[in-house]
């Protein structure tokens, strides 16, 4: 079930998505104990960043919507928490070690250089660049991920400051040309892509008070309902680039993971799945993947990556 991604070995293809259970180092450890094959930190800012007031989320059977607002304590806090995880991970037997992806975010190209340097010093296995959060905008007020030139510029500056650590870029699905943006990131040095962030923005209104429920009024949509949309984004991206992909969006089961992999993802992120199935979702999904592999006589999971796409 091992997957090689950007030269890093993941014991299984499930990865904790950024922004979920990633505030405290020991929380990442708890996610690993529950079966994740990789963990991603929350988005780390250079300095303290307060999120939105509540409510910051709401979930239904079909979708999950959130506008937490990327709260973070800054790079020094991240250093303490991520180092704590890394030390624990290194103390584990090699076959049980689970890679850490350090997610970074910034509001300007200049800050992307600084936060990349800071994350390089912490030294996770991979650096993931969040250019797709609606809170993070380029000079024209759009997320960097909505413009090929801005996405490329953010990728390039992080790559320049990340040393030898592989750099992957987390894209927005809310564009008509994700392939073009993916290519711009690839050309600027990205070694992988994460596809994708939440859809939307969306809105939910409480009809008893006639008020939008989220304090931020709008938020990113995830959960079971977005899965077909996300699978298509992975397919489009995988058709455009050669670099590997972490696919995500509405993954609840092992069969969902297989589907994303067949669309071209090497690893598959789980975020809202934690809401629906608890943190135990990782071990359950891994068991479901194993079951599918046995049933379908698949010995090496890496062989199914892009299987639907190549036909």
């Amino acid at each position, binding site marked *: 079930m091992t997957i090689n991604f950007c030269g890093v070995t993941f014991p299984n293809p499930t990865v904790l998505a950024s922004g979920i*259970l990633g505030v405290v180092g*020991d929380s*990442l450890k708890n996610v690993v104990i529950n079966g994740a094959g990789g963990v991603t930190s929350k988005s780390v800012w250079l300095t*303290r960043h307060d999120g939105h007031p509540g409510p910051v989320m709401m979930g239904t059977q079909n979708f999950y919507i*959130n506008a937490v607002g990327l709260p973070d*304590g800054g790079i020094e806090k991240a250093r303490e928490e991520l180092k704590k995880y890394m030390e624990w991970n290194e103390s584990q037997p090699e076959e049980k070690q689970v890679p850490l992806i350090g997610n970074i975010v910034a509001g300007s190209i200049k800050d992307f250089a600084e936060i990349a340097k800071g994350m390089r010093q912490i030294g996770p296995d991979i650096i993931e660049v969040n250019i797709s959060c609606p809170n993070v905008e380029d000079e024209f007020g759009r997320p960097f991920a909505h413009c090929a030139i801005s996405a490329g510029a953010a990728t390039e500056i992080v790559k320049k400051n990340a040393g030898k650590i592989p750099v992957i870029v987390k894209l927005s699905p809310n564009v008509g040309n994700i392939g073009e943006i993916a290519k711009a990131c690839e050309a600027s040095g990205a070694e992988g892509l994460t596809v994708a962030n939440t859809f939307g923005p969306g809105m939910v209104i409480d009809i008893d*008070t006639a008020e939008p429920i989220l304090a931020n009024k709008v938020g990113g949509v995830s959960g079971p309902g977005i899965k077909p949309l996300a699978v298509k984004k992975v397919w489009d991206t995988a058709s455009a680039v050669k670099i590997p992909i972490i696919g995500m969006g509405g993954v609840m089961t092992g069969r969902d993971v297989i589907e994303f992999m067949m669309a071209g993802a090497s690893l598959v992120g789980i975020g809202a799945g934690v809401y629906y199935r608890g943190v135990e979702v990782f071990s359950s999904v891994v068991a479901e993947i194993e079951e599918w592999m046995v049933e379908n006589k698949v010995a090496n999971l890496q062989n199914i990556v892009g299987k639907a796409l190549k036909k």
Partner: protein
Amino acid sequence: MENPMVKTYIFKGNLGAKPGQFVNVWMPRVDEKPFSVAYCDDKEFWLTIAAVGPFTKKLHKDFVKGSKLGVRGPYGNGYTVLKNKHIVLLAGGYGAAPLYFLAHESVKNGCKVEFIVGAKNKDLLLYTEMISKMENVSLHIATDDGSVGMKGYNTLILEKLLAEQNGSSDGHGIAELFVATCGPEVMMKSAMDICEKADVPIEVSIERYMKCGTGVCGNCCVDGLGVPVCKKGPVMRGEMARKISGLAKWHRDNVGLKINW
């Protein structure tokens, strides 16, 4: 109105909460905050809220009878409600509210209850009148300034009760005892130490900065255990709570930075 800083709000409806569980209360255009349930049956539930921050001060000022608030929950796990046991409840300050609910359910289940409440002074004591009227409940009071009850920490009463019970022959030996506590973490930690020494099981209620309430955002994850308190707590057995690093020393703010208690 419980005291100048604390009000109890009564909501209509069947929440289905257990003692120790909490709800998230939403004031549109303001914020959303977690509150433990102070009482619940199939017709109504109570939230006892102290005006301590911007949200609760605004709630006290603006929320009047008949106005609407959003409530989601109940969340978290709740205390164990025992049957026909002798239990000790140890409340510090606002902790009296959820333990009142636990006392109510425990008495319904045939328990005998020792209810210890503590506060800085008599004006800050909560629920004492209601507790004193409950059947099969003995009320014990401690205040820091001695304005009512025993002068000193309420944990001294706990120590005394456990010691007395140890030598008693009323059929409820110490092996039968069970302690539940809610209040400042430093107080709960010393209660844990007392119970560990006396070999009596204890449940504590851990308070952390919560946002989603559903074990997703990770803001209330505790060091050591790594679990979100909103989901695996807030109530924990003493043995589990002991594994929280920084217990009674630090908690974290809205961005996850450590703050000393």
